[in-house]
């Protein structure tokens, strides 16, 4: 197999992973939102063993699957070896994915839950900013620009309404962003 073909296959794999992660996360949130008592906030990120309703279970499993996909996506970005910024982005997404898996699949108590959720959000935010920087450095102005607008909009929501009304736009925004990044990898 030629080197060009290998690079194309790696890009395609990264793109499919990002699209799948975005679709799984938005589907899990969408299904959870149909639940009468389910609210997406910090307490929604609960371990699978502590789930009581079907909505909590589906969201928990969705987050585990999404975390796994994001972790593989992060590993893939490192594997691409296309610059320091992209590798750093991959490392941050790998950490974010592992934390998401850890919250929902492995942790059964509440001791570390709040700290893990905060660490996951910070890792995702840092990864998004680093990926945006890499997009601009690579001359992908359209994707970089959309990321820039998304980051500013989410920061404005956070500043205006606080953390309580931040989760739903943030998860949908992150899902859309992952899908756009995936399409960018597939069609560049």
């Amino acid at each position, binding site marked *: 197999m030629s080197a060009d073909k290998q690079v194309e296959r790696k890009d395609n794999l990264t793109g499919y992973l990002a699209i799948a992660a975005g679709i799984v996360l938005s589907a899990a949130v969408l299904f959870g939102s149909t639940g009468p008592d389910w609210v997406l906030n910090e307490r929604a990120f609960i371990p699978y063993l502590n789930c009581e309703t079907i909505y909590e279970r589906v969201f928990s499993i969705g987050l585990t699957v999404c975390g796994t996909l994001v972790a593989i996506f992060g590993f893939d970005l490192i594997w691409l070896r296309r610059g320091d910024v992209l590798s750093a982005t991959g490392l941050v997404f790998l950490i974010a994915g592992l934390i998401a898996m850890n919250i929902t699949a492995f942790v059964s108590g509440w001791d570390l839950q709040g700290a893990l959720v905060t660490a996951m959000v910070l890792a995702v935010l840092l990864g998004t900013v680093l990926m945006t920087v890499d997009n*601009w450095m690579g001359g992908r*102005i359209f994707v970089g*620009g959309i990321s820039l607008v998304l980051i500013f*909009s989410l920061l404005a929501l956070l*500043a205006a309404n606080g953390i309580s009304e931040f989760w739903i736009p943030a998860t949908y925004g992150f899902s859309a962003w992952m899908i756009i990044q995936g399409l960018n990898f597939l069609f560049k």
Partner: protein
Amino acid sequence: MTDKPTTASAGKTLAILGGIICIIGTALTFDAGSSNIMAEIGIPLLSAVLFFAISGELNVNGSMKRGAMAFLCFLNIAVLAFGTIYGTMELYLGAVLILLAVGVLALSTSSGTYRWIQADRI
């Protein structure tokens, strides 16, 4: 030097219009009793500065490349989105300015403007 393309001239005009509307709109909708005066003045003025910067770069003696200009345009849209969501700008004013900023982005990164910037500007 060849003739300036219509897209570059239209982008420059829209950008100047955006900057003027931004300042006048802010002055007309300004709430002096607000407790957040710096944000109410600073964010729209930052957007106006970006509008005027883009219009300046679409002059014959501008020096920015297409990527830098696109960055300024997207930054302007992001700042306007921030101001509108955060509430420092009226919703209708923010919506009009975002539309103008998207128009400026489309015109200043169009292929005609790009060709002119790359080869014919000076």
